[in-house]
Every structure is written in C-alpha cells, then in structure tokens.
C-alpha cells in the first residue's frame, strides 16, 4: 500500500511538473510579456509605462537563460522566467494579479468561502437526489416510473447548463419571484436566500447524468446472487436496496464522489458568474475576461492539482469501500 502510494504520488508530482511546463509555454513563450502588459494597461499606455509595468511584475527577465551583463553563475538559470515560474508555483507563492496587483493567494482564500458555500450544498443535494432517485427507479425498474424518469434524465442531460441558468433565473426569479435572480451576501443569516436558486439550478442540471449512472450501477447489483439470497431470507425490498445494494454499489459511487471533492474548491464557473457569487469560479472567469494571466495560470495549476489529488484519493477510497481491494 505504502509503496503504491509513493509511486502514485511520484507520478502525480511528475504530472504537476509537466503541467507547469505546459503553462509556461502557454503563458510566457506563446504570449509575449509585452502583450500581457499592453492588455493590463490598455491601448493608450506608452512604451515607458509598459516597460515599467513589466519590471514591476517581473516580466522583464529572459525566458530560459539570462545572459545579461552583471549576471553570473547559477543566476544565468535562476534569474529567468522559467525558474521563477516553477519556484513560485511549487512554493505556492502565486504573486500578484496582472490586473489589479492584488495578492493572488489572498484572492483565492477570499473566494474559497463563497465557492464552498455554493458547491458543498450543491454537491450534497445533488448526491442525495441522484442516489435517491436512482434507488427509486432501480426499485421500480421496468415499470413506467423507471421509463418516465429515464426519459426525464435524457432530456435533462440534453440541455446546456446555460439554458438552465437563464431559464431558472427567468422562471423562478423573474416570473415566480421566489428567490433573488442573482447576488450574494456573506452574512450567514441571509446567504441561503441567494444560494437557493443557483443550488436548485445546479441540482436540476446535474441530476440527469447522475441518476442514470447510479441507476445503472444499482440495477446491475440487483441482479446479483447476494440480492436474491437476501430476498430469499425474507429481507424487505427497501432493506435490500438500502442495506445491500447501496453498500455494494459504493465503489463506482465513491469514484464519482471523491473525484468531485477537490473540485468543490475551484468553484462553478458559470453558476458563480451568472448568479454573482464571488467565488473561485468567478475569479477564473474574470481572469479570462480581464486578461489576468497570472491569476489564470494559478487557477489552471490549482485545477490540475485538484485533479491529481482527486485521482489519488479515489484509489485510496477503494480500499476503504471494499477491504478485498489491495493496492500494490
């Protein structure tokens, strides 16, 4: 187990280094620092202002090798954009935003709360709705209820999330006037009013795929021998579904859950943007729209880290869910 973990983490570390190199090519080699400066300062900025901005933001270094006068020894390699990029990312010193000079780490910390306040209830409710509905249709499999829910799931999966968002805002916020169309308030006493609609929209937009996936898992399990045995022993249908089928179907469910958990921190791009929630999803969208390259590469890096961590956690979770599994 330990050897497996060390190997798995080493692969992860190598992947991180690879991701960082790709980020370097994208954000430094393809995009010229002059262009980054011009986008940050606007078209009216003069050459001296651009040069000063590059100095202030550390973009005035050479890409790979520093051959400037006065530079000697290791500094030829360390006083470069490549080295500085790796150093900053690996030490989580993300520096300052290209757009407004604010410390990126602070912005991430500020955004994590609002993101989690949306993604955690969305995740938990989505899971409850998905699993419950899947158990329900698996229980009533091959009846018209199963058929109706499956068709509903297919329809739900076929609609783009943007339509759910705009439709939800129009129908529930604008026509029915149940909740505010958008907005946020950090006050815990009132935040639920603002989160109700995005959570509802998020659950509705996601239930189709989740329900279909979980239903497949449950239906496959219900055909197995141990289920027949449980029934033969006189177990009630609900007990069979909840105590036996659900428990044995945990591995694929866990895969889904554990993979999703790290991404709770990176927020929901469109939901946050349309509902005015100041989380990390919004931060990413803003970085894209505002040409804030330093924030954007940090968010991409964090996303990649979240993915790698999610994969490792998934592997570990298998052994927890099923003691027969041995990682080697």
């Amino acid at each position, binding site marked *: 187990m330990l050897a497996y973990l060390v190997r798995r983490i080493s692969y992860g570390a190598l992947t991180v280094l690879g991701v960082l190199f790709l980020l370097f090519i994208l954000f430094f080699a393809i995009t010229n620092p002059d262009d980054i400066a011009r986008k940050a300062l606007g078209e009216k900025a003069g*050459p001296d202002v651009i040069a*000063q901005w590059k100095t*202030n933001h550390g973009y005035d270094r050479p890409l790979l090798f520093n051959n400037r006068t006065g530079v000697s020894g290791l500094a030829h390699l360390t006083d470069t954009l490549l080295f500085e990029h790796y150093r900053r990312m690996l030490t989580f010193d993300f520096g300052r935003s290209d757009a*407004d000079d604010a410390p990126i780490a602070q912005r991430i910390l500020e955004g994590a709360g609002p993101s989690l306040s949306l993604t955690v209830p969305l995740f938990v409710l989505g899971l409850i709705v998905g699993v419950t509905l899947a158990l329900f249709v698996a229980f009533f499999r091959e009846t018209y209820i199963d058929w109706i829910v499956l068709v509903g799931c297919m329809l739900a999966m076929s609609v783009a999330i943007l339509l759910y968002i705009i439709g939800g805002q129009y129908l529930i*916020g604008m026509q029915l006037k149940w909740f*505010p*169309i*958008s907005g946020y308030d950090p006050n815990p006493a009132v935040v639920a009013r603002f989160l109700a609609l995005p959570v509802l929209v998020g659950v509705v937009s996601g239930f189709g795929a989740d329900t279909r996936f979980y239903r497949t898992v449950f239906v496959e399990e219900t055909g197995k021998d141990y289920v027949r045995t449980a029934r033969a022993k006189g177990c009630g249908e609900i007990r069979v579904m909840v105590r036996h089928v659900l428990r044995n179907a945990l591995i694929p469910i866990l895969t889904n859950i554990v993979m999703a958990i790290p991404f709770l921190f990176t927020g929901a791009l469109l939901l946050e943007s349309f509902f005015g929630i100041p989380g990390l999803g919004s931060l990413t969208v803003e970085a894209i729209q505002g040409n804030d390259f330093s924030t954007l590469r940090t968010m991409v890096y964090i996303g990649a880290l979240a993915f790698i961590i999610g994969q490792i956690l998934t592997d570990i979770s298998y052994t927890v869910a099923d003691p027969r599994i041995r990682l080697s």
Partner: protein
Amino acid sequence: MLLTAAAGLLTLAACSNNPYPSADEDRKILYTSFQEAPRTLDPAVAYTTSSSVITGNVFDTLLEYHYRKRPYELIPGLARQVPEGRANADGTVNYRFELRAGVEFHEDPCFPPNAALGGRRTRHVTSADIAFQLMRIADPAINSPVRSNFSQVVGFAAFSKRLAEKRKLDPSFDGRPADAQYAEVGGIAGIRTPERNTLEIVLTHADPKILYWFAMPFTTPLPKETVAYYDGNQGRARLADHPIGTGPFILTIYEKQFRMILDRNPHWWGLADSKAPAVVLPVEGDPEDVSSGTIDKAYLGRPAPFLSRVEFRREREGIPRFNKFLQGYYDYGGIIKESFDAVIQNDRLSPLMRARGMRLDKSVEPSIFYIGFNMDDPTVGRAGGERSRKLRQAMSLVIDVKQYLELFLNGRGVPAQSLLPPGLYGYNRDYRNPFRKVDIDKARGLLKEAGYAGGIDPATGQPLRLTFDTGNTTTAGKLQYQFFINAWRQLGLDVELAATNYNQFQDKVRKGSYQIFTWGWIADYPDPENFLFLLQGAKARSNGNGPNTANFKDPDYDRLYDAMKNRTNDAERGRIIAEMLKILERRRPWIELYHREAYELSHGWLKNAKPTGLFSTPFKYLDVDATARAKSRLAWNQPVVWPAYVLLILAFAAIAPGIVTFYRERQ
C-alpha cells in the same frame, strides 16, 4: 415526505426575490450594478470606467465639468475659480489655483486624532497635498498612465529622472516615505505652493488643455498619510483598495468581488458652502434635459448631495442585471442586446416600458470609430499619390454606416462626417462630408480615374487585391468586417479579411505590414485636439508607436495642428479646425464611421440622471423617490406560489399509481 413538502411550501410562501434588506426600503439609497471590478482606486493610476464611478465621487478635483452644459465647460471645484494662464518673461506660463479653505479629508485611521477638529481623525487639505499627488504622477514607480500628459510642466521629466537615478544608486532610499523621497530630490520646479491654499503650475508654454487634467481624479489632493499607512502590510489595505479623498461620498464597503458602498460624507465642504458652483445643481444649462424630464425642475438651484448612499452590486452577466432592473432592484442601467427590441421600438421606449414609468436617455459619447488606411502602404498609401487617394475616396463612398449601425449596434451610434463628435468645439452639425455618403456611381467613376476600372488591377488583370487586417477573430467580429468587404465588392475590389489574434495583429501594426484596419478612440478631455492629434505626422505609428496608426503625414495638416493645439476656442481656432477637416476629407486616411451612442434606461423614481459621456456620473446630483420605488417593487414582485402546489400534485399523481401497481403485482 408530505411534511417536508409542506414545510418547503411554507418556506416558499415567506420567500421574496428582494436582494436587499427590507429595513433599507425607505432610505435614499441609489442601487446600481457594476460588471468589472476596479483594477485600482489609486487616483494616480485609475483610468477605467469601472474605477471612475468610485474615484469620481470619492475624490474632489480643483475643477469640474458643468453638469448640464454641452459643449463641456469647466467650473470651479475645490478651486475658487478657473485660473487663466499668465505668461512670464521667459516664455513660461503660470496657472494659479486658489483652494477653498476648510476642506477636510474623509475621517480615517491613517490620520492622528485632530484636536482642532473635535478629535476626529482627519485634517484640512492644503495645496501641498495636490503637489504631492502631482509628484506621484511623475514618480516612475507609480507608473501613472498619464505621466506624459504633464510633460509640459517645468521640471516634471527631470524630477522623474532624478528620482529613478537616486533609487538606482541608493537602494535604501526607496524604503523612505514617498514625500521624503520627493523632497530629497528637490520636487518639481514647475509645481509651487507659495501659500497654504495656493498652488502654482508653471508650464514651458501656454497650454489651456492642462486645465482638463485638473478636472480628473488624477490631480486630486491626496494625503501623504494615506500613502504611508495603506501599504498592504500587517493586515492594512493597499492604497489601491482604500481611497481617502475629500469628496461628497466615502467608500465605506469595498468588497469588489460583489459589492461596493458609498456613504454620504457628513463633513463634505459643500455642506458648509451650499452656494458654491460645484455644490448646486445648476440652474443654467441644456433646457432640453429639464423639458424631457431627465432633470427634475424642482431640484434646480438646490445644494447637493441628495442621496444618503450609493450601493453597487456586482453583475457579471447582462441578462440577470437587466432582469433585476426590470424588477426595480436597480435604479438605472443599460440595455442588453437580447432585450433591445422589447425595450426600444421606433427609436423610443416601448409602450410596456413607458407604462412602468421608465425613461430613456441617449447621449453621444465623445468617440470616433473608423476604418483606417496604412499610408505607408504602396497601394493604398501616399506612395500611390493621386491614384491611391482616389481609391480611398471610392472605398469611402460605398460604406453605408447607417445600415451598419442598424445591423450590428441596434442603431446606437451617430454616423460620423468627420472625426470630431457632437459636443466638441469645432463640430459643425451642418457639415456634410462629400465622401461620407453612399454614392456607388461616383465611387466607380473615381475608381476608373484611379486606373482600377471595374475594380480591376491593370497589373494583374484581376480584381485589385487588398487586405483588411483585424485582431478580432470572433464570429460576430468577422461578420462586421464582412459587411465592409461586401460593400467594396460592389466596386469589384477583392478585399481579403486577415483575422489574427490580437497579439499577432499588434505585431503586424508594429512592423507596418497592414493595409486596412479599423479602430476607435474615446476622448480623454473635450478638446478637438484630443481627436486631431490622432493624425499628426509626428505621432505616426511608424515613428515610434504613436497613436497615428494610419501613419498619415501631411505638412499642411501638421502646420495647422501646431497652430491649433494650444489656442483657446476662438474664431481662428474654429477656422483652422475646419481647414484641417477639409484636408482629411480630401486625403481620406480614414473612413469615419460613427460616434458611439449610449442608451441609458432609468426608473421614474430616479431624479437628475443626466448622461455625462466624458466624465463619471456625479452621484451628488442624483436622488431617488424611495417611497415610489418601494411601492413599485411591491407591486411588481409578489411571489407566485401556486405552481409549487401544482408541481407537488403532479409528482404525486405520476408516482402513486406506479407504487400501488408495483405492490399489487408483488403480492
């Protein structure tokens, strides 16, 4: 399950879509939105629309724009009067500002308690605070985008240079307070503070345009205490996020990811001097803004401010912002293209919007959008002589801007006859550019005279091949360029669209490898010079990254520009401008397209919201009828609960027979 559903329904019944606390319902709070967070609120650096809504209301300036007069006119703000230049024997020119006495900065922990002001943490403004801010603009480390605009101040550039050199030579120098550094390098020779409330600016030559910069927050008084205190260390905010000014509003909450709140300054100088020009809502001005209801007649001559608070909520997307405006939760806003036809019909508000008491205000922005020719290009530029000129004239004659505006901008623009927009000195509403109307026959004739009969290039026997370069690769952008290309195709010209990403386009511009392009310009200040300089030969892009991207160089134009640029708006200046426009009319380095028009929607309860165009809205003049607003909001936003019951019944009706059947079969 039923209990849960019932609880859900009961909760729903208590729900409301009101995003604000109900306790604020009757307060004089202006609610508006912002899409993009300000990048910085440091007045030496902030230069975007998103920041100016805050800096324009938190910082007072020595001069201000008259709220109701167009063309724009300067009035005294913190200064007692608008100064006039006084020539010195050595050719330099002095502008002397006399400041109002007794103006206080906003209360803030950066100041020590002031016994003279009742122990409040503030102090009076002096001319040294403005001098300090001007030195910050000159400071290369601040990197102010307007540094070059003050180069005519005596000793301005030399100060920047001395400061940079001193920092380079002595690394410990940079660690000292900014004001100490500035004093040590000797300050700026052309910025003097002979008395506590007197500021003198000495220019190398007469330049009345300098006064416009004193109507912008760049030149606001800034206390050195704020700069020293708000350094971003030990939990303190950064100056970029914590503006301390003297204005009628104080930024009390700045959570720029989702809300910003401006509260009325209880110690604003205008409260004690309620007759000052910058305090009173002007009686004189454009009569149409009163007759149209934009300005409420009852407010004329009354001292501002009228609001107690301005609350901005962040709306990144247009659709929710507009829907909340329709619900009455925002007091004013723009129109999104998705709803344009529902809101505007026959160029006025739709009956539905009028029935809700809304108002539409239009204003032409001081801007110009144009198609430019690279005059360094051998085919379309000056090397082609008369031939190229006639080609440019012919191409100008087939662009139907009115149709373009209808197709792509919902008609929001004024077709341009010259580069000067309405509202600026030198703009002549009766002027008709003979090459800015659609005349295909004349265009074909000119093309024939140019040697390209039917658009055929005699050198190849094929249609003349030209390239339209753009840095916009979006489908919407390409469609717009295709509109121009199709127009030129009517002449038989083969114009190819070279759409690259913005960086590659910039690179092409830097290298001069482009033929035709499109660009726009929004004025910094309301002077014709701020448009005419875009075609000055010395500012050609090929001469070192100047703004003259067309690389237009005409000795007559340049001579007239020099004669015009520093003149006051007298008859001679008007004559010179007309002559310059005639040169552009004939030589056609640009095809002038349109001046952008802003459409602003507001609810009937919002008072005095006149579009400002060039400067940010001074919230001090605005007011809301909070009672009328609360009444409308209540009427427009009653929750509709019955669909929840219907949904519940439908769900039950769909599932129940299945459950019954299932159990019956199992038994």
